[in-house]
C-alpha cells in the first residue's frame, strides 16, 4: 500500500489508517484476526481513543506483538492538565505500551476549549510533560468543528504536528466557510503539518431515530456509510486524491475489509472525476432551482 510522509513528523504512514474503534464491536479473537488482516495489507498507522469502548484493550495484544510495525495515534478529550495526564497514563496502561507515537487533542469544538487547553494548567501542559518523559512522541489535534477554529489552533499550538478533520465529496462541494476544510488542508501542507481524513466514507446522517431506531442501524458508524465495493473505492480514491496524508478507515468492522481492498488497489483519481463526484453530491442536496446543466 502507498505510504506518504505524515507532515514533518518523520513518519511514513500508509495512505490508509486503521480506525481501531472497529475492534470495540468484536470479541478478542475477532479483534486479533482483524488486526492481522489490516497488517497483512501493509497498514502501518493505527488510530485509537480511550472513548472507543474496549478498543484500546482489544488492540493491546496484537499491538504489543507487532509494536515496531505500528505507528499508534491516540487521543484525549480532556481539556485540563489533571484529566489529560491521567488519560495518557491510562491509555498507556490499557494498551500495554511505553510510548504513544502521536497523541491528539480530540474533538476540538469551541474556542473556549482552546483557551483552556493552551492556558497554564491546561491539557497541553500535561502533553508536553508526557513528551518530555518519553510517553508520547508527536502532538496532534482532531476536530470536525469549524475550520476557522482549527486554523486558530494551528496558530496557537506551536508544536502541533498533525490535524485530523473530515473530508469527503459532500464537504468539498460546500463552498461556505463553515465547511472549508480545504483551507485547513492547504495550511497544513504549507506548514508541514500532517493530515488525517475522517468521514471519507460518510454518505449522510442516519434517519431520525423515530424512523430507524439506533439499535436497528446496520452499521456501527456515527453516520450512514457508503457500503458497496464501488462506492467505498470511489470515496477512498477521492479522499486520497485531495492530498490528505492518510485516510482513516470507518468504524464498523464489516466495512474494513472492503476499505483495505480499495486502499490496496487504489490507482488515484483524476481531477475531472473528482469534480464529477463533488458535483453529483452537491446536486443531491442543492437548494438551487432545478438545473439542466452542470
Amino acid at each position, binding site marked *: 500500500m502507498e505510504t506518504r510522509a505524515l507532515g514533518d513528523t518523520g513518519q511514513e504512514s500508509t495512505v490508509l489508517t486503521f480506525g481501531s474503534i472497529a475492534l470495540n464491536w468484536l470479541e478478542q479473537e475477532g479483534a486479533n484476526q482483524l488486526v492481522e488482516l489490516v497488517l497483512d495489507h501493509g497498514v502501518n498507522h493505527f488510530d485509537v481513543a480511550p472513548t472507543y469502548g474496549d478498543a484500546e484493550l482489544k488492540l493491546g495484544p496484537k499491538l504489543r506483538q507487532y509494536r515496531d510495525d505500528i505507528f499508534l495515534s491516540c487521543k484525549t478529550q480532556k481539556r485540563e492538565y489533571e484529566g489529560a495526564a491521567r488519560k495518557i497514563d491510562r491509555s498507556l496502561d490499557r494498551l500495554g505500551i511505553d510510548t504513544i507515537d502521536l497523541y491528539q487533542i480530540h474533538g476540538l469544538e469551541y474556542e473556549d476549549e482552546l483557551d483552556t487547553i493552551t492556558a497554564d494548567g491546561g491539557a497541553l501542559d500535561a502533553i508536553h510533560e508526557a513528551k518530555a518523559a518519553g510517553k508520547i512522541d508527536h502532538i496532534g489535534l482532531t476536530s470536525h468543528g469549524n475550520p476557522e477554529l482549527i486554523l486558530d489552533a494551528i496558530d496557537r499550538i506551536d508544536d502541533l504536528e498533525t490535524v485530523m478533520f473530515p473530508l469527503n465529496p459532500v464537504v468539498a*462541494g460546500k*463552498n*461556505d466557510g463553515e465547511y472549508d476544510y480545504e483551507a485547513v488542508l492547504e495550511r497544513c501542507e504549507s506548514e508541514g503539518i500532517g493530515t488525517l481524513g475522517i468521514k471519507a466514507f460518510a454518505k449522510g446522517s442516519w434517519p431520525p431515530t423515530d424512523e430507524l431506531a439506533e439499535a436497528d442501524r446496520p452499521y456501527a458508524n456515527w453516520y450512514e456509510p457508503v457500503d458497496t465495493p464501488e462506492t467505498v473505492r470511489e470515496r477512498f480514491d477521492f479522499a486520497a486524491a485531495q492530498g490528505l496524508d492518510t485516510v482513516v478507515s470507518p468504524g464498523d468492522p464489516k466495512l474494513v475489509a472492503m476499505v483495505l481492498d480499495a486502499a490496496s488497489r487504489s490507482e488515484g483519481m*483524476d*481531477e*475531472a*472525476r*473528482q*469534480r*464529477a*463526484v*463533488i*458535483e*453529483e453530491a*452537491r*446536486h*443531491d442536496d*442543492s*437548494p*438551487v*432551482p*432545478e*438545473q*439542466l*446543466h*452542470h
Partner: protein
Amino acid sequence: MSVDDVPETVTAALADQQVEGRVCLEAGAGVGNTTAGLLAAGAERVYAVTNDADHAVTVRERVGDGNADRLVVIEADLRATPLATDGVDLVTAHGLCNVLPPVELDPIAAELTRVAKPDSRLVVDDYGVPPSGAAVNRLFTLENAAARVVDGRPALTFYPPAVLAAVFAEHGWTVERKKTLLDPVPWTGAHLDAHAEVVRGYADRLPDVVGEPLTAMAEDLVAAIGSERTGTMYNLAFRLAD
C-alpha cells in the same frame, strides 16, 4: 444563494483565467453559475446576457445582492446585443452551445467577437456527444422531438470540441488550452427532472392528445433512468487575435 456557491466546473474553467479587474460577458446566463463564479473571482463588471426573462430574474436574485455595481443583467438575443464594440476582456459560454441549434452558432460567434476587445479571452464549456449507449440519450431525444414539433428547432445539440473550435476560429479565436471538466458527467435525478420539465413545457403548448403522452413518456424515462454517469464536459480557452 450567493457568489459562494460556484460549481466545481466553473471554478475549474476559470482557474487559469485573469478575471480580477476584467470586464466580462457571460453569454447565456442561465441560472447564473458562471456569473457567480466571475463575480467571486473579482470581475470588475459582468454583463450577464440571456434571452429568457425568468433566467434574468433568477440571476438577479441569486447573485445581485451586494453586487449591484458590478452586475448588469441584460435580456437580449446573443446574435444582437446592446453591448458596445470592443468593450469586453473575457467572454464565457458555459453550457450555452448545447442549447443552440447549428444555425445560431455562427451569428452568435460573430457577435461575441464584435463585443470582445483585441487580445481578449473566451471560455467555452460544453458537453461532448454522449456515448451512443447512454440512457440519457432517450430523454434528450424525446426533448428534441418535442422541441421540433413546437418550435421547429432542437432543444439540445451536442457539439464535439473540434466543431466549436472551428466555428470560433473563423472569427479569429485560437484555442490556447483544452481541459476536461467532468468525466463522467453525473446526470443526477435533479438534472433529469429538469429535462423532463422542459418536455412538460413543450407539451403544455400542444393539444392534450399529443402533450399528455409526451409528458408521461418523459416521466417514465426519468423514473427508468434514475441517474446516470456518462460522457464528458470539456472546456476550451481561446484568445482573440490582436
